[in-house]
């Protein structure tokens, strides 16, 4: 603590202004998070207060209680949605990491025909808004009969141009000498990939893991479009339906508040776990 204080004391007026401004900005940016946490514990009367309040006066666990109780009354329990989400998220995460790193390794480190074309296609696909491909996606998923299966959730997220794009940039900075040294040491393509490329790409993998996690965890598209059975839909869909008036809007508000927090927490945990690695990715400009 002491050295930090001393550093503050030696800060120039300009730095003091900057620090104050950024602190204020950070506090402002954290307001929604503060709101989510408080909102989840508000009793019914505070939920509908106008003007709304940020902080909870009389915290209660009632919202969570209703959420779980309501769920057990409904045809599909809350836990089923949670289970689906966990399955889908973990499988997608693993497969996206595997597929993207493999693709990126080859694109970054090997020369082959049509490499430029493939890279251009990947860049091009970054430009599409997801809505524009919903219909073709539906046709594909429906065509191969993946409706109401976990694969129907996973497959659309599997090819992640953002992940490949980021990883290509990262892996191409790993010196080729390392791979050559490994080749001479006796490693094959798989050996180099597993022993060198994967461990050295951990910061980038962490980043794409967060992005993928957030994308999939919060995604309602696959549940809406490809899943007709309620038992195959995910938590994000369920929470969304509570909020969007598919269910009883007024009665749903308290459950929505609790579910909102529940769905937010994993995001926070994942981010806190990986944030140091993410920063590394951003700082990383090359391995010396």
């Amino acid at each position, binding site marked *: 603590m002491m050295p930090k204080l001393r550093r503050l004391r030696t800060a120039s007026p300009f730095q003091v202004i900057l620090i104050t401004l950024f602190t204020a900005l950070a506090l402002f940016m954290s307001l929604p998070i503060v709101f989510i946490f408080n909102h989840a514990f508000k009793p019914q009367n505070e939920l509908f207060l106008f003007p709304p309040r940020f902080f909870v006066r009389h915290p209660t666990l009632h919202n969570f209680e209703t959420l779980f109780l309501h769920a057990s009354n409904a045809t599909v329990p809350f836990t089923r949605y949670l289970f689906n989400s966990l399955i889908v998220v973990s499988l997608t995460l693993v497969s996206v990491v595997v597929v993207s790193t493999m693709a990126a390794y080859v694109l970054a480190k090997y020369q082959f025909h049509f490499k430029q074309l493939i890279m251009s296609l990947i860049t091009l696909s970054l430009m599409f808004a997801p809505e524009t491909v919903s219909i073709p996606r539906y046709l594909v998923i429906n065509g191969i009969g993946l409706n109401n299966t976990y694969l129907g959730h996973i497959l659309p997220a599997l090819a992640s141009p953002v992940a490949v794009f980021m990883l290509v940039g990262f892996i191409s900075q790993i*010196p080729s*000498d*390392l791979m*050559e*040294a*490994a*080749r*001479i*040491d*006796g*490693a*094959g393509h798989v*050996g180099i990939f597993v*022993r*060198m490329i994967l*461990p*050295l790409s951990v910061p980038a993998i962490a980043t794409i893991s967060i992005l993928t996690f957030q994308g999939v965890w919060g995604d309602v598209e696959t549940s809406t479009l490809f899943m007709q059975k309620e038992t195959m839909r995910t938590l994000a869909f369920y929470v969304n339906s509570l909020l969007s008036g598919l269910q009883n809007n007024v009665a749903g508000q308290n459950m929505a508040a609790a579910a909102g927090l529940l769905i937010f927490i994993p995001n926070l945990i994942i981010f806190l776990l990986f944030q140091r690695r993410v920063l590394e990715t951003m700082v990383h400009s090359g*391995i010396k």
Partner: protein
Amino acid sequence: MGSITFNHVFKRYKGESRPAVNDFHLSIEEGEFLVLVGPSGCGKSTTLRMLAGLEEISSGELYLDGRFINYVSPKDRDIAMVFQNYALYPNLSVYENIALGLKLRKTAKHEIDVRVKRVASILEIAHLLDRKPSQLSGGQKQRVALGRAIAREPQVFLMDEPLSNLDAKLRAQTRAELIKLQSDLKRTTVYVTHDQVEAMTMGTRIVVMKDGVIQQVAAPRALYDEPANVFVAGFIGSPQMNFLNGTIEKSDGDYYFSNKRMRLLLPEATGRNFERAPKTVRSVILGVRPEHVILKRGSTEEAGFITGLVQMTEATGADSYVYVQIGSYPLIARTDPEQTYAAGDVVSVGLQMHKIHFFDESTEELVGRGEA
């Protein structure tokens, strides 16, 4: 064990008209310390990488111990390579770095342990085994990279400018250690460098390359004393050999080297070089090393001496180099550091005629020497 044969090896890159390596034809003996030297872009590293299997051979054959290895993958060639930037695996500890090659070759665990520790003690890095490469200094990284190569006990060591990232003092020290190591291990070593001092001190044989073509292959001393052409003569030796353009003339049975500013009588033996030579050889380049230039104070009428003006002097401590201008011809002379010359001093310059070289002006090949 460890003899290498290059049979007319070429390396052509797509879209380049000139081959990067042009007709590399050479046999490397078992246990030899061969140095490939030349300016950057001369193809020396490409040659090494072809030998390592990291670069495809466009045409020609490569043999290791009589085995045709053009299409053998690097891991099956029984070679180890030390890279310029060490290429240590940053995610592995020093121990794991050294052990990886053995592990991938399915060496027994206790055997790996014995070998890693032995190598570590030879290279004095035993106390660093648990560290990560990022925690090592340049010199230590260099040792780990060497250790990684040695632990595998390959037939051939390849080294691609392994010392160029070290500071001058450490480089000299490591150079000496490498020489000792090689003589202890007696393994064939192919060493690439652009530094002629490294080449001269380390190699049992030196290959000088330029533009992908071998200029000369010789032992260090022979390379210095009998350079095959102007390029080799200028590349080996620091400061470089002096070159003077002129012609060979014959009068009254004696041969003279002459140009606008000088007329030097050649020793009889040297002159005889030109007796049978074709007529085109008459335009020549005279080459003389700075240590074979004699400097005297003041101008003199003595035969074989030419008057010049001192431009500057360079004192390195042990020697001092005097830059003299004779008309339009510059010349560097090595002198005793006790003798000081100032810019503008008038000096007489003589050459040790038995130490001079003559190169043909158009082909730049050696055509005659003082000692013949």
